[in-house]
């Protein structure tokens, strides 16, 4: 395997030295373990049996196809050089042969059956999602992944995973001088799973179709609103593994990565404990009364991680995205109007519903928008007000 990688790398660098000269002089980027390698020519290094099987199948197909290709085009190019008018070749007159036609229909048919056998075995293995040790629901939402640990160790853990905002800003700035290895692949909270356990991923979505894909695990499953689908993997080694959304889901499609952290069993147990402690501490009482300063402080964080991708840090929006700065709904004395927009969304989901956020987060971010930029309403919204309308 190592030797093969070595040869592959050499081949790669030779093949694209021109491209390298054109573009990469400026970037000192390294291979990302569990993600793409620089100038990778083949499938990412597998971390599951299924992915290994896929790599094997791909080589199997490549070899058969290459042999056929060389054979057919060997004949064609021989003919091109030998049977041309300029070398004085006279055209023969044959133009049909039933025997030949039957031969080159039947032989490819047999080759195809030969190819289908190992593929069938792999399909059956891939689709067997029974007897999972851990079941996690991955919910695609524009443009982040929500993870809910449904069954197995860690049951009840639930969080949302978003692209690192600094990287999103780098992208907007043309990625000038960026040399991070996990560019566009870094998230705030990775999905954490134990090594060697069968993990079943149930996918769904709250808005449009997304796809949960991790190449080194060999999995790809669309996340479809209103429906659930599933897939599974059993990671063979600990480490970080990266994937990206693979079904066009709107403007931020390129910015909703998947990061799976595979931990040893002990580390995983420790992580679950830690999560449970944090969740208990984080639980906000929706009836607690907050001060204005507390709300604004929390609101600015909620805004940064959820709103400013579209509405911009200056609250002006842009293109189809409406501004918040000076907006009638934000300035309105009737606070329920803005609460309704955040809970239910607006304009056919162009402004999505944010009811997945907690009452406290919603109250905080509304208070923040009502008192930031040129908006000086001095109004604040308490979590209890959101809770009342949510009901």
């Amino acid at each position: 395997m190592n030797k093969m990688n070595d040869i592959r790398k050499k081949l790669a660098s030779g093949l694209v030295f021109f491209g390298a000269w054109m573009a990469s002089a400026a970037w000192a980027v390294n291979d990302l373990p569990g993600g793409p390698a620089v100038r990778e020519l083949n499938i990412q290094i597998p971390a599951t049996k299924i992915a290994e099987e896929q790599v094997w199948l791909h080589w199997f197909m490549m070899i058969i196809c290459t042999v056929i290709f060389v054979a057919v085009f060997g004949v064609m190019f021989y003919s091109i050089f030998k049977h041309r008018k300029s070398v004085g070749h006279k055209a023969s007159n044959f133009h049909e042969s039933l025997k030949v036609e039957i031969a080159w229909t039947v032989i490819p048919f047999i080759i195809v059956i030969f190819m289908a056998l190992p593929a069938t075995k792999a399909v059956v293995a891939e689709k067997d999602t029974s007897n999972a040790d851990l079941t996690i629901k991955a919910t695609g939402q524009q443009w982040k992944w929500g993870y809910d640990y449904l069954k197995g160790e860690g049951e009840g853990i639930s969080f949302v995973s978003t692209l690192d905002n600094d990287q999103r800003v780098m992208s907007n700035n043309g990625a000038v001088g960026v040399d991070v290895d996990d560019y566009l692949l870094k998230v705030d909270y990775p999905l954490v799973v134990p090594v060697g356990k069968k993990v079943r991923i149930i996918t769904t979505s709250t808005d449009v179709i997304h796809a949960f894909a991790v190449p080194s695990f060999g999995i790809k499953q669309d996340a479809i609103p209103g429906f659930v689908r599933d897939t599974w993997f059993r990671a063979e080694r600990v480490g970080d593994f990266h994937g990206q959304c693979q079904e066009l889901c709107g403007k931020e499609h390129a910015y909703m990565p998947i990061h799976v952290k595979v931990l040893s069993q002990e580390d995983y147990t420790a992580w679950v404990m830690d999560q449970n402690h944090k969740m208990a501490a984080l639980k906000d009482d929706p009836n607690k009364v907050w001060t204005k300063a507390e709300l604004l402080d929390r609101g600015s964080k909620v805004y940064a991680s959820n709103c400013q991708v579209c509405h911009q840090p200056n609250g002006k929006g842009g293109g189809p995205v409406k501004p918040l700065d000076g907006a009638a709904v934000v300035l309105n004395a009737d606070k329920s109007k803005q609460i309704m927009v955040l809970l239910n969304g607006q304009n056919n989901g162009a402004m999505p519903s944010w009811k997945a956020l907690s009452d406290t987060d919603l109250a905080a971010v509304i208070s923040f928008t009502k008192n930031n930029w040129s908006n000086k309403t001095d109004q604040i919204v308490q979590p209890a007000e959101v809770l009342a309308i949510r009901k």
Partner: protein
Amino acid sequence: MSAVLDPHGHIAGDHDHDHDHHGAPEGWRRWVFATNHKDIGTLYLLFAFTMFLIGGVLALLIRAELFKPGLQIVNPELFNQLTTMHGLIMVFGAIMPAFVGFANWMIPLQIGASDMAFARMNNFSFWLMIPAAILLSTSFFAPGGAPSGGWTLYAPLTLQMGPSMDSAIFALHLLGASSIMGSINIIVTILNMRAPGMTLMKMPMFVWTWLITAYLLIAVMPVLAGAITMTLTDRHFGTTFFNPAGGGDPVMFQHIFWFFGHPEVYIMILPAFGIISQIIPAFARKKLFGYASMVYATSSIAILSFIVWAHHMYATGMPVTGQLFFMYATMLISVPTGVKVFNWVATMWKGSMTFETPMLFAVGFIFVFTMGGFTGLICSMAPIDMQIQDTYYVVAHFHYVLVAGSLFSMFAGFYYWSPKWTGVMYNETRGKIHFWWTIIAFNVTFFPMHFLGLAGMPRRYADYPMQFADFNALASVGAFAFGLAQVFFLLFIVLPVMRGQGAKAVQRPWEGAEGLEWEVPSPAPFHTFENPPKLDATATKVLA
């Protein structure tokens, strides 16, 4: 095209003046009221080339953005609009109309008919495309920009689009109606207007492939119309076909779309097979090997194309049996496709070949298209597809079959038949430059995309991890070279022959070419075969 642009050209030849009063009207009336198959064919080809250039500019904007990581030129919203409109314009505005243009020009000439069966419907099906093209190409200026949900128009993303989505849907309805009318015309012409002695199994391969393609079009264009109409009513009239909140199913859209979409793939390649099957024998100076098996292979591809659609949807989560069925059915298509390639190679074998530009493009087609065929076989394997579905591997695959396939065959067809259309020979040196420039730039553009896809770079991404930078840069350089090659083609090959510059073409410019189109003078007179010709036993020659 000189004969075509010169309104008096049609009077030349052996017409008596009887025909003058229903000859071509002059000036703009000649084109707006065109009923002559040659004029309409010219209109289709010019229209398609214009759309090809527009779609090409969009593609170059995409490649310019992807030249380096990070956003430099467009924002992600506009990027998605560019990929969507590039796809829609190339498929519906460039490739499909171009083949209809070839059909209009060549089918009557090849079967010895005086014109297409329904001349005014022919006019209507062309002019319907103009408003459609305007709706599509101006959608960038609509509020919220052009549709950005991908050319596949997957729901429920399309339910989030702005008003331009509706104009795109309306445009597709118009183009669909135009295609259906065109297909009816082609089928009726082929089945009813062949010269006596031109039996079905003596028809030129181009006519055969178009006959089958026309049936495919009639079968699937209404399916597309259904899918996008449901999208339209979901958007505006309160239905919930694709909205799960109202009991709809987003995946149903994909099933309906790909039931159209897969036969559509063959709609765009079968006429290409036809053109190649005409050109290879002409320049090998040897009859097409296995004519009957070519006809059967084409028909089997057409029939199989209806039962493979869900191989576009392996990642939606089908049951095991579903994946297996669609995998087997898809792999089966490689058998008749292989037969075609073998027949072409056998036609070349022991021929007496020369390599003028049409032959270069035809051989280039076989060589590069076959690579696209092999990657198609690899994509058809459901387990491997888990790695490459919706990645650049798929982008590479379908550009190998649609650019190196359909487009190269049209270039081949242009060089082969333009002497008959225009009455002048294109410049052979420039043709060869165009070929080598195009095929090299094509491979520089699309070959690296296989690597990107295998390494996991998803398609329709405005920005990508740094590890993908080099191959993207290479692909972008190739794309601009490819685009320039087509500007060269327009300025230095197409325009000169349309202006009548170049050596005068003789009636039979190609030594080995057979068929009725070579029985009429170059340029083809405005009216040909007004009286059914008497044909020899092979139906390739007119008996005096």
